[in-house]
């Protein structure tokens, strides 16, 4: 079947088998390998992407269900001007080690900050509950998200 979606701001079409997941579509049809195949049953969050403003596990969505929707992957976050403030903060805080969970965590943080510009630590922890990181703790990620939230608020205030 044909699937057309708005992927990182661009209209893209691919022909896939009906049982194809959104994750497989992203990785194999569009070569966007930022979303990772981890548990493949919706527990680990390594495949987290943003669909119409909301985070989902791309492994638990069929490609057909993304027809006509807007999908943001980690590849669509940075701009010509540079990394997104959340990505910068993760770099500055050395929040990631192996990095496998990183794309999912950063997109979960993005969806949180889009809706809650000034989250509490508890809200940040809640937003990351579906993203498993087994290298380290979450402390440096939480610090990075708090810093990115301050940065994004300042950017907004400047506008």
């Amino acid at each position: 079947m044909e699937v057309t979606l708005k992927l990182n701001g661009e209209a893209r079409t691919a022909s896939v088998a009906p049982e194809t997941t959104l994750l497989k579509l992203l990785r194999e049809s569009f070569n966007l390998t930022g979303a990772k195949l981890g548990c493949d049953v919706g527990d680990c969050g390594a495949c987290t992407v943003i669909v119409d403003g909301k985070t989902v596990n791309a492994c638990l969505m069929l490609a057909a269900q993304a027809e006509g929707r807007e999908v943001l992957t980690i590849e669509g976050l940075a701009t010509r001007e540079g990394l997104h403030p959340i990505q910068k903060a993760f770099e500055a805080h050395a929040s990631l080690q192996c990095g496998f969970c990183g794309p999912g965590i950063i997109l979960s943080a993005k969806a949180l900050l889009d809706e809650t510009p000034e989250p509490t630590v508890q809200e940040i922890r809640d937003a990351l509950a579906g993203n498993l990181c087994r290298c380290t703790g979450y402390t440096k990620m939480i610090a990075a998200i708090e810093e990115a939230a301050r940065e994004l608020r300042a950017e907004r205030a400047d506008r």
Partner: protein
Amino acid sequence: MKAFEVVTAKDSRHALALLAEHGSAAKVLAGGTDLLADLKSAHDVPALIVDISRAEDLKGIAITDEGLHIGALVTHTEIMRSAVIRELFPALVDAAHTIGAVQTRNLGTLGGNLVTGVPSMDSGPTLVALEALVAIAGAGGRRRMPLAEFFTGPRRTALKPEELLLEILIPKKNLGKPASFLKFGLRKGQALALVNVAAGLWLKPGKDAFVEPRIALGAVAPTVIRAPQAEAYLEGRAATAEAMAEAGRIAAGEARPISDFRASAGYRRDLIAVLTRRALENACALARAAKERR
């Protein structure tokens, strides 16, 4: 995943027509958080997946003369954000919040959670305590039944292959009924309930006595169950700490918990007693606060 066909249903009518045509060869896909996870490891997959995730007629939250209607496709996130539900039933918001994580709550639907029939589901107890009904459509028309009867066994419901769950209805008499949902899992995030409990009740004006107390227990029997003996014990009784503790003990005796790798049956019974007492206390506090506002 093994190969299957996918048809996207425009609305519930279209979905029902597809189900009537294909019967048990078809399976309904709503949020997909359970179905797709299951299909990946399934030996046999259905020939046809009927994707209802775009059926807008199943996504409403509305109050009518009959009560509060929640469409089967309303997601857990939408329940958490609904102004109407937050106002009338904070317990439903709490229950939705304990399901999975943000990603699963964004996709997963209330109807989808209920049709799994999993005994530990977090959507069940509050709705059972509020005496919710489910509306089901099939080739022969529509029918309604109490949610408590919809659950027929572990992972089994009264839904037939060609039928579709349309909505959940909390009857008008229970609109705003003070209720509380509590869950005990082994972690704070993404945990299955060892025990989950909901209590709903009214307090008699001036007397502080229980009127129509309802207690529902999850994960401690083949289905979500009521605790009728504990409810009967409380009916008309003064809402004291002792009465609520006793109701908790009675409820623990009404359950049939199992021992497994997560917890022993004895531990689960202890949890029922404590969580039931606390849920009753929380619901009483809500009832008293509501009275003061008036």
